[in-house]
């Protein structure tokens, strides 16, 4: 019986090293990379990202999405939407004016509304809070643009997992299970 106690004490000592706890409601912040995969299928359009809620346009400015399709990071309060603007209607000077010169919110909205555009994605976030114990390290969201739809969810989500922690957790459980089986075997022999 004594040697079992040594094992279980060791197990308890390992727990805090993992820095995780099911009953702990604390959270941590992780960044989300958002990427549009099929931007090159729309050579006649310019795609812009803009924060449509939360802090407002001046804290969530208009950003042009480059050909790699990566949606740039925004302030944590920005809920980002992606718009398609046909190249014929795209006016970089107007975008610059909205981002840099306009101070009045109504004026910003008026100028923004004057751009002929089409919303293709909404509800994009640059970061997310997850439980501190989470084994997820990073999240990458991938979108496929379809001009006939407004997407509210990514088409593909990739989560990077901390496999070291997963292994430790599984090992502890496995050791406990082996001990349980061993105890039952010995008890059955008696």
């Amino acid at each position: 019986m004594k040697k079992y106690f040594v094992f279980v004490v060791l197990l308890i000592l390992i727990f805090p090293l993992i820095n995780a706890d099911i009953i702990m409601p604390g959270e941590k912040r992780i960044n989300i990379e958002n990427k549009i995969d099929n931007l090159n299928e729309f050579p006649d359009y310019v795609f812009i990202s803009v924060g449509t809620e939360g802090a407002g346009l001046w804290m969530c400015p208009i950003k042009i999405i480059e050909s790699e399709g990566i949606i740039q990071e925004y302030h944590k309060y920005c809920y980002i939407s992606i718009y398609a603007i046909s190249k014929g209607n795209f006016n970089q000077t107007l975008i610059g004016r909205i981002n840099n010169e306009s101070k009045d919110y109504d004026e910003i909205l008026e100028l923004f509304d004057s751009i002929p555009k089409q919303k293709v994605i909404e509800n994009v976030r640059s970061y997310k809070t997850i439980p501190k114990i989470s084994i997820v390290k990073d999240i990458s969201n991938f979108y496929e643009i379809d001009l006939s739809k407004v997407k509210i969810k990514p088409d593909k989500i990739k989560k990077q997992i901390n496999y070291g922690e997963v292994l430790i957790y599984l090992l502890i459980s496995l050791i406990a299970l082996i001990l349980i089986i061993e105890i039952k075997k010995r008890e059955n022999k008696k």
Partner: protein
Amino acid sequence: MIYLTLLLLTILMEIVVYLIFFRKNFKKVLLYCILINAFTWPLAMLFYGLTNFFILTEILVFLTEIYLIKILFGIKLEKAFVLSLIANLITATITFVVGKIFII
């Protein structure tokens, strides 16, 4: 340190519940309680870490512990069910509150 405290608190509370049920053989109850928690905690942490579903995680822990209590203590399924339910309700509630106060 708070993690160790929370873990020990959980085990301590479960031991109290187990002892109320069994009322003898403290060492055996302690060992079985630690082993049960050592098995379910890491798996629960993995599951919760991946899904964020606290209640579902607790339900899975409760169901797993029914079986472990049954085979380790050699008691009927009904009794194991009640024991697991009480132990997990108490620990989940108290440790969640403690976690809220000291960690956030």
